[in-house]
């Protein structure tokens, strides 16, 4: 019986630029160089062309993109976190505390909060490193909520009022470019890290942790390091936003900071970092744009999320990448 099916074939230029670079025209040069370079130029140019309101949206988007990248990184090590808010919130409160208590300048509070926040996050999760899969996720989900309730109940760190009157950045350009540059650094840093031998071991832990252990590698120490990396990146985002808002309060531990990065990575496509970046730059501005609609905003937002996930389960990035690198055609096959 003859049957028709779609077959996917790599484009010629894809094949020729895979191992050896055999570019034969200017057009092919663009084909290879535009995908990595365009996002950099776009991100650096965006603050210049956007109006003030959308500059603020860009800042939020970049923060969520960084959180999504760090979430994606943890997943490559096999830890599915439902609590990026923990990292974010710890960093946010640390920056606020360092500012108010010791009167440190911004350029000290942020790096300090980044490092200390990463340490605290890693130490908090040390006891659960042996947990795998959903058990680890549950703990990460609960920890930020625990912080939130503790601060509410004890009035510690300003209680429900939060910490106010914190220092701000000198102007919006500093805010925009700081976060965009950090975003690019984190993005390319992670892309690079996972291809090193160190990153390889992290990936292998996700794949088969028993085999990694029998290779003489302390997987708990490696996982703790991965948590520190993710934790400090999340803490940086928190510390940064504290100084953008000149305020830190309980909402930094809100579920948004855990779920939105996760949604970005899933919608954009996991495992490539580019997907997380793309996902955040679709979801966050979309949510902003829907603000005009009013009451039904959340419903429409949720529906669009479902549509994305059902229509393109592999993630937008992987879909686009496939279309870019391959063409499809109908083929007749004997069955």
């Amino acid at each position, binding site marked *: 019986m003859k049957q028709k099916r779609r077959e996917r074939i790599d484009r010629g230029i894809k094949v020729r630029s895979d191992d050896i670079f055999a570019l034969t025209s200017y057009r092919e040069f663009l084909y290879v160089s535009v995908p990595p370079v365009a996002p950099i130029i776009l991100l650096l140019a965006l603050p210049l062309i956007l109006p003030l309101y959308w500059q603020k949206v860009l800042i939020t988007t970049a923060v969520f993109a960084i959180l999504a990248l760090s979430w994606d990184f943890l997943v490559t090590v096999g830890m599915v976190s439902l609590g990026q808010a923990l990292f974010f919130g710890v960093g946010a409160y640390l920056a606020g505390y360092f500012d108010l208590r010791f009167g440190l300048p911004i350029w000290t509070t942020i790096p300090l909060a980044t490092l200390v926040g990463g340490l605290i996050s890693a130490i908090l999760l040390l006891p659960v490193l042996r947990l795998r899969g959903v058990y680890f996720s549950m703990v990460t989900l609960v920890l930020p909520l625990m912080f939130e309730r503790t601060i509410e109940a004890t009035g510690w760190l300003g209680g429900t009022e939060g910490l106010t009157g914190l220092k701000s950045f000198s102007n919006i350009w500093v805010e925009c470019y700081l976060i965009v540059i950090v975003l690019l650094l984190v993005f390319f840093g992670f892309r690079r890290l996972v291809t090193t031998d160190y990153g*390889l071991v992290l990936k292998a832990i996700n794949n088969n942790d028993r085999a990694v252990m029998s290779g003489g*590698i302390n997987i708990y120490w490696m996982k703790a390091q991965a948590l520190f990396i993710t934790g400090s990146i999340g803490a940086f985002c928190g510390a940064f936003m504290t100084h953008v808002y000149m305020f830190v309060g309980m909402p930094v531990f809100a579920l948004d900071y855990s779920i939105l990065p996760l949604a970005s990575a899933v919608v954009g496509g996991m495992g490539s970092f580019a997907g997380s970046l793309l996902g955040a730059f679709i979801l966050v501005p979309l949510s902003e744009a829907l603000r005009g609609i009013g009451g039904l905003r959340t419903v429409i937002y949720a529906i669009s999320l479902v549509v994305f996930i059902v229509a393109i389960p592999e993630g937008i990035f992987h879909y686009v990448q496939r279309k870019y690198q391959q063409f499809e055609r109908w083929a007749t096959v004997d069955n």
Partner: protein
Amino acid sequence: MSETTGVKRGELLLKVRGLSKNFGGVRAVIGVDFDLHQGELLGLIGPNGSGKTTLANLITGFIKPSEGRVEYRGKNITGLMPYRIARLGIARTFQMAKPFADLPAFKNIVIPLFSPRVRGLSGGRYGDRDSVAKDLLEDVGFERDSSVTFKAAGSLPHGYLKRLELAKCLALRADLIILDELFSGLSIAELASIVPIIEKMMMEGKTIIMIEHRLRELFRIADRVIVLNFGQIIADGKPSEVMESDEVKHAYLGTED
């Protein structure tokens, strides 16, 4: 028992005394004693569920013993974490060869090469791990520069997966290697090509414990065999002697009463 039998070639490497493990009410391993000397190839055989893999897991630290003691080169390693035991030079393969499926075959070998043991042995400088990994794969029979080396490990045929496991043990530069059912599922031709690799490891002075069901192939290379049944050692000696024992015949074949 083990003091009188077995071919002694070198120093005492592994000393197991009174090793027991209970899983709830099930006594998987009961009071196992044996010694292993440098350069020996010990076959560990027994019917299904007799505790062979549990014993391997107890020695390599993947399971903590209920009772008893394991010494490696005179050092007590009972209950140490698996990675610590691996760092001392005990490598193992797993019954189900599960490679790092997404990684290319040679990158699988980079993982043990990354371990502190290997970095320590090579004075901190290991050079290019990728090329060392490819050399090791060639040692276990991956054709040099063939595409197999670069294929995702998850897509490799069974025979190559077994070799990959062997290469991981070699990469760790282990002195004691525990092979859990290495021969299972291999064709005669594949066996014929994998046995020389083991013989070469023996010539390099490695000590090997092989858990096997394929006795004919095992007996050709083993110096000594331990037979487990219901978690206890029922025979320990040269392959030919062991199979003459009535108890072993009974365990394997059952007897007519």
